[in-house]
Structures are given as C-alpha cells and as structure tokens.
C-alpha cells in the first residue's frame, strides 16, 4: 500500500478517540438531556450522528460506489428505517443490550461494507450478498447502538415517547447534514483521475478503521 494511504490511516485512527469521549455522550450533555425538553433531544440526536464516527464510516462505505442520487436515497432510507425501528423499540421497551458489544458489531459492519465494496464476497465465496438487505440489517444494529446511548441517562418515563421520537428525528437531521458533506467531498474526489486508483486503498483504510473500532469496543467490554 502506498505510503500516503498509510499516513492517512494513521491520522484517521489517531483522531478517532479524540472525536468523542471514551463512550457515549459528555457529562454536560447528560445534564442537558436529563433536564431538557424535546428540543434538547432533537439537538443531541443530530449531534450524536454528526460526531458519531462509527455511523459516518458505515454511511461513507454505503455510498462509496453509489453514483446516482436515487440509489443514495434508497440505501440511506433503508439504513434510517432500520436504525429508527430498533432505537424506538429498544428505548421504549427498555431492552438493554451491552453498549460495547453493539458498538463492536457496528465496527464489524464497517469492515463488512468495506469488504463488500472491494468485491471480496464475490471473490471469496462466489456470491454477492444482497446489499440492500445488509444495509437494512446493519441499520437495525446501529439503532440498538443509538438506544444504548440514550439509556445511559435517567430518562423520565413521563413524556418519554415524544423525546425518543425527537432524538430519532435529530439523528435523521444529523444524518442528512453529514451525508451532504460526504457526498459533496465524494463528488469532487470522483472527478479526479486518481479516484479509481485510490478507491481500493480508501476501502482498505475504512476496513482498518472498522477493525480498530471492533478492537476498541471489545477491549472496553472485557476491561469494564
């Protein structure tokens, strides 16, 4: 792999833990959420998505080879529907899933998508798994990840449903904002002659980030 790619990977990975705190949402946001109203949940949902590198990496992988806006819309909708279902279900039903394990699976989803983009499943197993089904399935997993973040808070049972819906709406707003930025950058990148050469390396970098996320969360599971 070229040196440039290696340097890019190192920079990306070093930045990872700095982007967010060790796990979840900051202490200040915590108080905001426990005392705040519907707007606070809307804002924090959007903030969680925009600063949530695990979701963004997956989204980046999903749209990597989607050139038509119609396809982008279909796949992103599948992802959004998937994570909305489990976010709402997880919080409202009080289903507790271990945050570290869910986040490790989210890391795996990033690795999966990178391998999928590289055509690895066709090369290794001779079959192309249904990409739409995979995005929906991992959407469900990402939703459980979002639910565990919300469940870290002492949420009042009274008026819970509108707040969860607001958080979810915030997540979708954040996703649209993040997606717009990613698509814009991708549009410029794809126009360059180097794109086809860099596409392979870029997906390897995404895969490395996915592996790092898995290791980060699994270690957290065992030491916590």
């Amino acid at each position: 792999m070229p040196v440039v790619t290696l340097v890019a990977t190192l920079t990306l990975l070093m930045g990872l833990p700095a982007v967010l705190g060790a796990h979840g949402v900051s202490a200040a946001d915590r108080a905001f959420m426990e005392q705040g109203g519907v707007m606070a949940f809307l804002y924090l949902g959007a903030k969680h998505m925009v600063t949530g590198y695990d979701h963004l990496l997956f989204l980046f992988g999903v749209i990597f080879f989607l050139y038509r806006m119609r396809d982008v819309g279909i796949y992103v909708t599948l992802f959004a529907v998937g994570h909305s279902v489990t976010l709402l279900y997880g919080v409202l039903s009080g289903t507790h899933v271990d945050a570290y394990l869910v986040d490790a699976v989210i890391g795996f989803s990033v690795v999966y998508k990178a391998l999928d983009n590289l055509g690895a499943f066709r090369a290794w197993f001779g079959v192309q798994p249904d990409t739409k089904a995979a995005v929906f399935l991992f959407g469900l997993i990402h939703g459980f990840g979002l639910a565990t973040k919300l469940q870290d808070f002492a949420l009042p049972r009274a008026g819970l449903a509108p707040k969860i819906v607001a958080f979810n709406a915030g997540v979708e707003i954040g996703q649209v904002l993040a997606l717009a930025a990613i698509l814009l950058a991708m549009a410029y990148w794809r126009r360059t002659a180097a794109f086809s050469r860099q596409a392979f390396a870029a997906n390897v970098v995404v895969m490395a980030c996915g592996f790092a996320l898995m290791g980060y969360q699994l270690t957290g599971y065992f030491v916590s």
Partner: protein
Amino acid sequence: MSTLADLPSSGRLVRATLVAAAIAGVMLVTVILPAEYGIDPTGIGRATGLYRAPEAAAEPLPTSAASAAGADGVTATAGSLFKSVTPFRSDEMSVTLASGEGAEIKAQMAAGERLIFSWTSVGGGVDVDMHGESLDTSAGDRSYWTGEFEADGHGAFEAPMTGNHGWFWQNLNDTPVTVTVKTSGFYTRLFRP
C-alpha cells in the same frame, strides 16, 4: 450498483484485509488502548504521552481516614477507631419533586470525614445517584451508589476527597414524591446546591 472497474483478485483481497487488520492492531496497541483504557503493553503510549491511567488508578480512593490525614486535619487513627476534628452535627432536609423533576442535596465534607445517612421517598420510588465532586469541579463528579425506583437508602459514607457529596434524586412517576434525608456526622453543612 457500480463497483471497482477491475475487481481485485481473491489473494489481493486477503492481503488487503490482513494489512487493514494489522494497521488496526498496531494502532490499538500503541494509541487507542493506552489513551482509552490505560493499557500500554509496548510502553509506546507512555513514550508518546498518549498514556492515560484508568480512572480508578488516577484517583486512588483513600482506604481510611488515616490515609487522608494531615492536609485536611483528620487525626490518624488505629484499628476501628475514627477520630474527627470537625464538629458533630445532625440535619434533616426534605424536597418535593414534581413528575420528571430532579434535585440534589449535598454535604460539604473534608476528605476522610464520615457521616451516617438515611433517606426515604414518600409517594413512589425515585432514581438516585449518590455522588460527589471535589471543590475543584473541573475534575468532574464521582458516582458512589445509583439505583432505579428506590424507596429508601441507608448507610455510612466516608468522603474520598474534600468537596460536596450527596444525592441526586429524580422522580419518574406521574405524581409528586417527597424525599427526606437525615444525616449525622462530621461535615460543614447540608445544603441544596
């Protein structure tokens, strides 16, 4: 769906995956684990300054009043005896919480000082977080005891650091509750922050 123009071979993909895993492994061991969990098997984290001790190791809890003696004026003790230089006092405070509302009551205490406490909630259980923070609030707070839908809590407490230590209760019922806490011991004051 479009994809790579010329699909890479199976062997190349295996190598790429191994390279990705290896990069992730190296970064985990040298950067992420030292910074996030204080796990630094190679020593590189310490060398680069990224090492951050785990929370428990960073602020060791004094195991007895004796270990906090000196600076805070608590006399060293032997065996099961605990001597205090802070005047003894007893307090009782109540707070009524509307549905969804939360409130704190805290005791200002020197490191190593102790109190006995008993709180009860009338009208329904409450979520509780017994916690404290040092006077330098930038250090954040530390949680001692949390519970959901608890009707009461009783015990003895020794302040791990000089600061404010107490309870955050939140009423998640649809109706109001009243929480009453009684404390006795060696602290400066009991107050609503």
